[in-house]
């Protein structure tokens, strides 16, 4: 190793250049570290922490499997039903409050579970365990509409009322107040 050459006056230029390159590179690496967020790049070109945050969001809609944990008898009853694909929350509301209450009641003996509510317009909290089976219950899905698949049971309201015979009263046919007439309808549960 020729030390005289390395520390000679002419080599100073090389030393300056290398210093600048190293210093510039260090500033770049440091700055990049400051700007790149934590956990970025651990799993891909994104913040891995975002996956966890998104996955931790609480579920709102109560799955049928949750309902059937307590109400297994209803599940068995409905196993052969035409409407077995229709989920519980369809008619009973969301049930999140109901499940929360049930979980609370399981821990605290003697605590009663709120049985039923009138429709309060809040889809988030509403649990109507004794649904009013009125016209809307059927027609929300079954009212004949252009676009429905051919095999699907469709009800043309005017024709249907005619088929079912003369009206009993005017109240019975008004959309909101007409109640399920068990003598004239099969139980489609």
């Amino acid at each position, binding site marked *: 190793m020729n030390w005289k050459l390395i520390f000679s006056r002419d080599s100073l230029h090389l030393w300056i250049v290398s210093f600048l390159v190293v210093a510039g590179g260090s500033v770049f690496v440091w700055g990049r570290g400051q700007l790149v967020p934590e956990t970025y790049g*651990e799993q891909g070109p994104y*913040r891995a922490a975002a996956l966890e945050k998104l996955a931790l969001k609480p579920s709102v809609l109560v799955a049928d499997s949750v309902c059937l944990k307590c109400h297994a008898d209803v599940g068995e009853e409905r196993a052969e039903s035409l409407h077995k694909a229709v989920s519980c929350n369809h008619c009973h509301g969301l049930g999140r409050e109901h499940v929360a209450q049930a979980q609370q009641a399981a821990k605290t003996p003697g605590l009663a579970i709120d049985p039923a509510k009138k429709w309060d317009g809040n889809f988030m909290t509403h649990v109507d365990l004794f649904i009013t089976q009125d016209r809307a219950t059927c027609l929300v899905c079954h009212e004949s*509409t252009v676009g429905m698949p051919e095999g699907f049971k469709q009800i043309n309201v005017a024709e249907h009322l005619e088929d079912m015979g003369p009206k009993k009263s005017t109240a019975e046919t008004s959309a909101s107040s007409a109640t399920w007439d068990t003598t004239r309808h099969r139980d489609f549960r």
Partner: protein
Amino acid sequence: MIQENNDTGGGCGGTCNKSSCGCPSDEMTSRRQFLQRASTVTIGAMSFTILPVAMGDGTESQFPMANGKGAPNEGEQLFGFLVDSDKCIGAGKCLTACRTENDVPEGSHRTWVERYVHFKDGTLQVDTVPETGFAGSDFPIIDPQLVDRSYFVPKLCNQCDDAPCNQVCPVHASFTSPQGVELVDPDRCIGCGYCVQACPYGGRFINPETNNADKCTWCYHRVMRNEKPACVEACPVDARVFGRLDDPNSEISKRIAKIPTDVLKEHLGTHPKTRYAGISGEVK
């Protein structure tokens, strides 16, 4: 090299005192040597700055993309979604479920249902199904006598393998999860809206409450707990099927094997993962 230097040294010859005179000598550097050494030093210094970047943090990544190589979706794709247009009745239950589950503000939608009505005179009408379904709305009733064929098409994020929305995001807030779901990082998104424009399916919107880009995530938070997405849970006729494609016994794998399915706008090369059954070419 030194020998050559001496031979071509010129003026000073062998007479000068090496330590004191300023003449070129065998101790001095030729142009060639200077360039060689300078390039060595420069390349060495450059590799010093590049190395930490290329090495990353040293952890083995699940995706090769983390090291700047390969495509993000080379890994195993887990989730799949099938929309069966032959079954959809347009009740709109999925719309309410999605809005409730994901706090989607009124006026925006993560999923929507379109109705395609082909009239006998050759015209096509496309409507958007209201959340109550057509039956519960004051939408003008179409005379079935005039209709040749008609069907409902539920739409949602197509979760493309080569997602244009991801490519344009300036802050990498839009990304593909290891399960193949396109997600938005709420802490990184700056709400610039590039991805909203980039999506050829209109699947994204800027959420006016959070000012972030928002989109269907196949209910990522639910499916990671083995629950179904809200719209799938709410659908009364199984028109929406969600499941794992890597499991041949899952319902979606069986359905896709049984019926012909299609993707939307295949010519764009976005390779969507949401598959559609029973649609015709007019559906875009």
